[in-house]
């Protein structure tokens, strides 16, 4: 995202303005000073004659005579130079005011003042005002000597300005702003003049900066006028940085900050309420998208201006402006906007917020935005919680929300991460006590990576490739790696590693692909050795190195960025507030005083299941929320769907029952509901044996619906439901489907999303169960009492963000392609954070979690099963999978053809952005849907899928089915890539350079 940089734009503009205008004037008089003075006096004499003809109303002739003479005079004045001439003298005049002869004369006669008086006496029409403004503007901009420091020039000028204070016609305003701008440029060049502006009193009362107060009304104007006004103001702001008096005058005596901030509110209210896009992959506003929407441009200009002001202004101004932005824009406008009830408006406001966050570059301003997002409560729910909850929706709203979180995570902001994830992990209640010290362990042997890779569904593993042409048997690595003797192998610059890896990368592939260029430089255009489609697809199986490289890069970046954080979050520092857990009590723990965790727990998810008066014991299966629609999305606990899918025993449920039994027997049961004979509880074992035990334990994870029979049952069950649902005429009518219905076309979907959304956690939290909070958000966080309701305090909770992400992940096969792009990207982003607490939670497969805490690995395991089940049910799955890969590669290649890593980036979400070339700007407000390159290609590539009966125009039932199949097939591709990415990230963590974090 391009960040705002105002000043760079400013400089050329201020300077470049003059040249064209001076050419429109008569060629300057170049006679010697004496002659000039004489001529000047001559003109003045003529004017004087008219001026002194008192009483009678000036005749039109008089007017034009004065006009002409004044014009000549001011031109001469502009050309006037101090005696002695020479540029060197000009600067010498600082202390003692040296003036040119004409200026001297002007001062002596108080000529300008008298002229203005004459004008004011008469009928000072707007036209004449404009004339005067233009004259002064010309004079100031062209003067060869500093004029403004001379009272005889300055005083009439200020008087003229004060006359023009009232709102007026456009031409007058234009001239006024231009003059003001010119004044600011002069003042910026010679800050001493500023004092004079202060001390001169005008009709406007106590002279605060009249220039300034005149400019303020134009802050939010569009077009050149607004731009000039903002530029001019910015110059003053920059001056304020070194001049406290100016700063004080701005904050105390002007409406600058309030006008600027509340102007944002006004501009915001004219933004489109609804972002109309047809592309189903649209998920965030890019510059191309908004540049064509004038109201948005206007808003962005002003926001950009705020950013610039904060960048250059005095801290006093900075602080005032930031406060006003918070209290005058974010809280009263942005807050309610984000909570609008229509999905469309939620989408729009979320996308706007995302855009704003991406655009703001000044830390102070960003801080205000983040503070608003993290701490501000609207209807008792923090904005953050609201946004987190929306990830759960099943629509574009989800995508837009995911984009927003992508932006938030990319800030590497400790406060954000603390609120989103870390504070839930801080108490370490999610791990077994004995495991706490393992938080910092690094997985140096790649066990985690192996684990992740082993979750690649069987059906997605590379097909056994055609027999290799001929493989050199013997020491292939070196021979191949060094010189690449292969006849048609291009001299690849990058993979020149002698390592076996490069060989391995190629060796693992089909022989023909070996001839293809290595991924990194991209297939050379027009190269005869361009791989055929099958080879391209096969590339997917060999892109692990790319993932490793990307992971390394991302982690290094993140680790480097996080060096400014206050603590390492390694399980020791910082300590979670509140009492440390009592080692004697089994996993459950007493409800601590207001640790963030306890406070937080009460918030969204659990509230949904609250039964008035009903004890919510830890032994109550989470599925038992009475009356709760198991699929309403409100029953996510730690990422697990609290509701078991029918016919399928859910791990959590069993585990919770077990938890009451003595610890020794209970803890091991996390992944194995059937309770196979278990060895010692892992919790008490020293690490090595934990390893082995865990290995055993985790080996069961993928088999989570225990026994194939059950899962097939589940699957057929699901199928039946879906069929039933389709018979109902489609998607909307089946709220009680146990599985998330496949995504219907967007319009339906969004309504449905809304429906599901209203049932969502933060809705509940917002119903006012908690007492109204004091207004200071900080105090709220610190002082909020533990909730009386919510999940049993003994139940560790890893936070709503993780819950929602895991829940969404678990649902991957039903998510749309684009949701999965974004979702997996977000999780990967999260996994790149180097903080041991977070890293161990997501990536350490050695950790033993509390039974009720679902691990990423478990979630992924269940996705794997779903995919495998689906593949088993779908006869032509291999073919579909192949086509899906082809399509995704084609899509990635469209705009990545030259870029590196076309394939590796396949599932990266920015590919998504890049693969959408056409500007959304045109789409945004018109309801047009231009066929684009990408879409065209997509259609072509999809042809294959559709041939299999997936035509978009098919009757609803078929369409729903088509969508379901398509989502599942895409999911299989994305999921496999995602696992590789996670594996690479896990590996890269172990080799992060110590220099980055020290």
């Amino acid at each position, binding site marked *: 995202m391009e960040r705002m940089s105002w000043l760079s734009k400013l400089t050329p503009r201020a300077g470049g303005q003059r040249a064209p205008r001076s050419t429109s004037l008569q060629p300057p008089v170049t006679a010697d000073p004496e002659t000039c003075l004489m001529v000047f006096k001559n003109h003045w004499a003529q004017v004087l004659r008219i001026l002194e003809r008192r009483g009678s109303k000036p005749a039109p002739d008089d007017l034009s005579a004065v006009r002409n003479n004044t014009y000549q005079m001011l031109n001469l004045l502009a050309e006037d130079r101090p005696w002695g001439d020479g540029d060197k003298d000009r600067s010498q005049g600082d202390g003692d005011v040296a003036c040119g002869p004409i200026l001297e004369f002007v001062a002596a006669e108080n000529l300008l003042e008298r002229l203005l008086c004459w004008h004011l006496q008469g009928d000072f029409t707007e036209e004449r005002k404009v004339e005067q403004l233009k004259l002064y503007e010309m004079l100031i901009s062209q003067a060869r000597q500093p004029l403004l420091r001379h009272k005889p020039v300055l005083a009439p000028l200020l008087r003229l300005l004060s006359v023009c204070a009232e709102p007026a016609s456009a031409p007058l305003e234009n001239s006024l702003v231009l003059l003001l701008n010119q004044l600011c440029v002069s003042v910026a060049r010679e800050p001493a003049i500023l004092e004079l502006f202060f001390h001169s009193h005008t009709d406007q009362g106590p002279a605060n900066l009249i220039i300034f107060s005149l400019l303020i009304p134009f802050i939010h104007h569009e077009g050149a006028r607004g731009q000039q006004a903002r530029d001019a103001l910015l110059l003053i702001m920059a001056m304020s940085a070194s001049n406290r008096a100016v700063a004080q005058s701005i904050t105390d005596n002007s409406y600058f900050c309030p006008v600027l901030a509340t102007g944002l509110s006004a501009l915001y209210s004219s933004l489109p309420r609804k972002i109309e896009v047809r592309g189903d992959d649209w998920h965030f506003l890019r510059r191309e998208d908004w540049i064509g929407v004038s109201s948005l441009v206007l808003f962005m200009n002003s926001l950009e201006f705020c950013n610039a002001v904060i960048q250059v202004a005095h801290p006093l101004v900075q602080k005032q402006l930031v406060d006003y932005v918070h209290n005058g824009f974010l809280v009263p406008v942005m807050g309610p906007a984000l909570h609008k009830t229509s999905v469309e408006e939620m989408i729009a406001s979320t996308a706007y917020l995302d855009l704003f966050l991406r655009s703001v570059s000044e830390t102070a301003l960003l801080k205000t935005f983040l503070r608003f997002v993290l701490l501000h409560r609207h209807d008792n729910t923090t904005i953050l919680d609201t946004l987190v909850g929306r990830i759960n929706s099943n629509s574009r709203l989800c995508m837009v929300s995911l984009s927003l979180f992508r932006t938030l995570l990319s800030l590497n902001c400790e406060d954000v991460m603390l609120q989103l994830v*870390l504070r839930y992990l801080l108490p370490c209640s999610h791990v077994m006590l004995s495991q706490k010290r393992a938080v910092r362990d690094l997985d140096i042997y*790649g066990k985690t990576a192996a684990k992740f890779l082993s979750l690649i569904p069987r059906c997605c593993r590379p097909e056994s490739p055609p027999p290799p042409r001929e493989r050199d048997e013997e020491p292939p690595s070196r021979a191949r790696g060094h010189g690449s003797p292969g006849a048609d192998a291009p001299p690849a610059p990058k993979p020149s590693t002698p390592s076996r890896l490069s060989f391995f990368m190629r060796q693992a592939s089909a022989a023909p692909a070996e001839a293809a260029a290595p991924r990194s430089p991209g297939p050379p255009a027009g190269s005869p050795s361009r791989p055929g489609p099958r080879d391209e697809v096969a590339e997917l199986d060999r892109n692990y190195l790319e993932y490793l*490289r990307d992971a390394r890069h991302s982690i290094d970046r993140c680790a480097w960025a996080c060096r400014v954080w206050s603590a390492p979050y390694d399980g020791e520092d910082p300590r979670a507030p509140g009492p440390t857990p009592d080692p004697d009590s089994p996993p459950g723990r007493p409800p601590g005083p207001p640790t963030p965790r306890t406070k937080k727990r009460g918030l969204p998810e659990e509230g949904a299941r609250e039964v008035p008066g009903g004890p919510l014991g830890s032994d109550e299966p989470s599925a038992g929320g009475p009356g709760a629609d198991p699929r309403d999305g409100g029953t996510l606990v730690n990422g697990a769907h609290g509701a078991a899918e029918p016919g399928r025993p859910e791990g959590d449920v069993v585990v919770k029952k077990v938890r009451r039994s003595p610890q020794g027997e209970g803890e091991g049961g996390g992944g194995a509901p059937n309770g196979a004979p278990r060895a010692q509880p892992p919790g008490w074992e020293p690490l*090595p044996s934990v*390893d082995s035990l865990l290995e055993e334990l985790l080996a069961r994870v993928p088999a989570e619906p225990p026994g194939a029979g059950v899962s097939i049952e589940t699957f057929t069950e699901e199928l039946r439901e879906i069929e039933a649902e389709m018979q109902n005429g489609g998607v909307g009518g089946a709220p009680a489907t146990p599985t998330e219905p496949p995504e219907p076309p967007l319009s339906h979907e969004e309504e449905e999303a809304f429906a599901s959304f209203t049932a969502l956690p933060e809705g509940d939290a917002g119903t006012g169960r908690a007492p109204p909070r004091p207004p200071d958000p*900080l105090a709220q966080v610190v002082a909020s009492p533990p909730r009386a309701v919510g999940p049993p305090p003994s139940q560790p909770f890893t936070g709503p963000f993780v819950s929602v992400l895991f829940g969404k992940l678990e649902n991957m096969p039903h998510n749309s392609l684009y949701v999965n792009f974004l979702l997996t990207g977000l999780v990967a982003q999260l996994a790149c954070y180097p903080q041991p607490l977070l890293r161990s939670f997501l990536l350490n497969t050695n950790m033993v979690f509390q039974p009720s805490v679902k691990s990423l690995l478990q979630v992924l395991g269940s996705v794997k099963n779903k995919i495998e089940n689906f593949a088993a049910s779908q006869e032509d799955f291999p073919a579909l999978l192949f086509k899906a890969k082809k399509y995704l590669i084609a899509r990635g290649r469209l705009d990545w053809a030259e870029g590196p890593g076309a394939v590796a980036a396949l599932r990266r979400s920015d590919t998504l952005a890049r693969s959408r070339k056409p500007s959304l700007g045109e789409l945004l407000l018109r309801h047009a849907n231009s066929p684009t390159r990408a879409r065209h290609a997509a259609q072509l590539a999809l042809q294959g899928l559709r041939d299999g009966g997936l035509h978009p125009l098919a009757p609803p039932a078929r369409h729903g089915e088509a969508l379901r199949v398509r989502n599942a097939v895409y999911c299989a591709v994305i999921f496999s890539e995602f696992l590789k990415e996670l594996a690479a990230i896990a590996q890269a963590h172990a080799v992060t350079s110590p220099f980055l974090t020290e």
Partner: protein
Amino acid sequence: MNPFWSMSTGSVRKRSDTEEKTLGGELRTSPLRASAKKQLPSIPKNAVPITKPASPATSSQSTNGTHASYGPFYLEYSLLAEFTLVVKQKLPGVYVQPSYRSALMWFGVIFIRSGLYQDGVFKFTVYIPDNYPDGDCPRLVFDLPVFHPLVDPISGELDVKRAFAKWRRNHNHIWQVLMYARRVFYKIDTTSPLNPEAAVLYEKDVQLFKSKVVDSVKLCSSHLFDQPKIEDPYAIIFSPWNPAIHDEAREKMLTQKKKPEEQHCKSMNVSGLSWVKPGSVQPFSKEEKTMPT
């Protein structure tokens, strides 16, 4: 003895850089210290068994699982992680560098700064078993057999086994071997020696032992500029002090302590954000007390 030994890592710097880029990704550390340290070593010939599962012809692959074919990555990364741990340890006077040819072979040199072996500069090679981390403990062989009870007088191999009877993954790391190698020169152990003569002398005639040690140290130093025993682009090579080259480098090392960070910075001018007061877990708890002017 010249106190300013200069080390260079062979002639193939350029290659190493490209390789580093390829494998290490955006690994832009100070070229001075890090290109030597951070390059991702390659897998040696004797790692073949690990690569085997990658062979595409095996039909067992589909059942065996793709991940088996990622084996080489695990080995390389494990060793790189081991190396990172070594770097973190900052063992005084111990420097190692994985070989260009094999990640399982590390070149090293140890500087003894006090005690009986003071001024000793001993080059050595670490051999890591190819079934690492499940195999035996790594072997450490000095280029020249140092006169020491625990160093084999013929092969120069240090008795590592006594410290690591059983190599346990997760518990044992290569930095421990290096630390041990350094320690034996400060704290001499004579039980069941590989060099009985040295052991006996140490027990019975320390003076003679000392003079033998001095001889041994001298001998090692006199061979310092020899070509490395194993030819490898990343072998550690000593050369005589050459002011034209080394003065500047030394100057840099001594003055720009902070440089490596900045160089990181160049490649990633990203900075995170934090308004959390140290020790607090509340967002925005760090309030700027004074505004910067």
